[in-house]
């Protein structure tokens, strides 16, 4: 398979290129809570493929490398341009967006095969699809929004200086993909299974409580800082600080700084975390003396 790694002249190697096979190893799981298993697939090589197009070919063939007829591998995707955050998976062991994982680059890394696994910190729904509810629950906890709901017109909001905009913009590009959480050594999986006799509401409550016991995650800390720097969002700054200093809050961060290294949007997460640490320090001291 070495020839795959070689950069061949497309025109002269046309015939050869069509013979190329990309080998893919997928960690599959049929349903939540079931055993996972490896399955190998062989996909004809095409130029400018990405992991999503590989998965599309696999679905079209519905056949494993050894010729068995298999159900298509399930995966999640939407925008195909790294803005929606839905296609996160472990490509060659590392968390990243499948839609921007280019096959040519992956084969340069490892010409033998491409390895696809679902994220390990979230419950698997099926194959490469995971349940990322906890990502959104964390955003809910830190109130990652500007509270402007009301029955009358508040008028126009305060101005934001270009400098502030420049600080805030990168943080606002977060797409809740969960890469920062997957790579974080302090973030551990929380999988809650609905009991037979449990109502949907009770299950939701129990699951939220379980989520809230675990680490809130870098993305939520960063969003808390984004909205605490917004002139209107600031109005509930203390509520956000309370959330990020409650159980599973910023104190769980171990400063490994993997989050910032893997964030596909290059969000300065460790800066947000340190700013949140500073804000939490000041807030806690203030609370101590202001009573």
């Amino acid at each position, binding site marked *: 398979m070495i020839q795959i790694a070689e950069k061949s002249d497309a025109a002269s190697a046309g015939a050869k290129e069509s013979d190329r096979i990309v080998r893919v190893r997928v960690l599959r799981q049929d349903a939540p809570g079931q055993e996972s298993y490896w399955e190998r697939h062989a996909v004809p090589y095409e130029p400018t493929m990405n992991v999503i197009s590989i998965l599309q070919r696999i679905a079209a063939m519905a056949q494993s490398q050894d010729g068995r007829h298999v159900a298509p591998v399930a995966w999640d995707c939407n925008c195909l341009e790294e803005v929606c955050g839905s296609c996160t998976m472990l490509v060659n*062991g*590392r968390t990243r967006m499948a839609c921007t994982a280019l096959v040519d680059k992956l084969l340069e890394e490892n010409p033998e095969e491409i390895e696809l696994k679902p994220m*390990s910190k979230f419950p698997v729904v099926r194959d490469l699809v995971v349940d990322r509810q906890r990502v959104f629950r964390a955003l809910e*906890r830190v109130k990652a929004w500007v509270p402007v709901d009301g029955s009358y017109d508040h008028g126009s909001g305060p101005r934001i200086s270009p400098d502030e905009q420049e600080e805030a913009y990168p943080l606002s590009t977060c797409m809740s993909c969960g890469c920062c959480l997957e*790579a974080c*050594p*302090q*973030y*551990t*999986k*929380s*999988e*809650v*299974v609905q009991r037979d006799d449990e109502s949907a509401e009770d299950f939701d409550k129990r699951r939220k*409580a*379980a989520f*809230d*016991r*675990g680490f809130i995650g870098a993305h939520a800390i960063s969003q808390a800082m984004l909205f605490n720097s917004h002139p209107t969002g600031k109005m509930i700054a203390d509520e956000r600080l309370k*959330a990020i*200093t*409650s*159980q*599973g*809050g*910023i*104190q*769980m*961060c*171990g*400063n*490994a*700084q*993997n989050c910032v*290294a*893997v964030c596909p949007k290059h969000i*300065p997460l*460790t*800066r947000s*975390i*340190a*700013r*949140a*640490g*500073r*804000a*939490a*320090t*000041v807030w*806690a001291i203030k*609370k*101590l003396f202001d*009573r």
Partner: protein
Amino acid sequence: MAVAAVSPKSILPLACGFDFIAARCSFSRLAAVLCSRHVAVDRIDPSTITRLFVSESESNPSFVTRNQFLIYRLFSLSGLVPVGAFLVVHLLTNASVLAGPGAFQSRVDLIHSLGPLLVPIEWVFIFLPMLFHATVGFAIIAGGLPNVGSYPYAGNVRYTLQRATGMIVFAFIIWHLIQLHWMGAALGGGQFDPHHASSSAAVALQPAIVGILYAVGIVSAVFHLSNGLWTLGITWGLWTSPAAMRRASWVSIVVGVLLGGVGLGALVGMRNVNVEDAKVIEDRMEGVKRMLEGQPAAGSPAAGVRAAPQPISNPSPAASTTGVSTTGI
């Protein structure tokens, strides 16, 4: 119940053995004890600091979970003061042996001049903070999932080393205490004699394997402190921008290298002490001390105070414990 899956990939052996939830459970048992006291305090003054960090979870959270932020911040602080500060003083004091056994002995004498206060001070400012730091530290290690294999970034390597050195240092300190501290005498250790500081330490540190293990212990402790200094700055928000963090990491590297030099210097100095010569000096100093206190120089062997005490090479008992300008490092 939440299922905390501990991946078999965790590279720290301890992370495998511990379950996150299990660690939490033992924690809440401890919490139950603390809680009863806490309630009493609460009744006296409803505005105790513990009430600041009320957890939002509905199901009656324990003292520890309600105060997780405070506990982790105290954990972070305790690593610097008093535990980190103690390490610096301890290594500098020991490195004074490089200026001769007399210099080291005078510093040991200064510490032991605390007399009956020494034990409570040791416990309040050294052992209990260390135990607190270690307890929370082990809970953190148990809750983490090191993944340096998949994400071999420098920061992640430091994260993993911080945990590994924490465990090494914990084991080392226990052994170190058994071997040298008087409390270890019951276990066949307790070899350090404060009246013969350099000579007794030199004898204890003589075996090659002991020297190697001490070098590992010292380097681990120094790494843990200097890297901890850097993470502490992020935790408390002292350095927030990537550039400031880079500058801070240089500072922590310099601190680490200097302190590592002091620590290893102390080890080498201690092992190179000429035991016989040191004993002569120590006995002479012991004799002077007893004379000044008006006690007979009882039990003083051969080289005791026969005539008037000769001037001692480095008698300055007033030197502060940190003052080791003469260490030559």
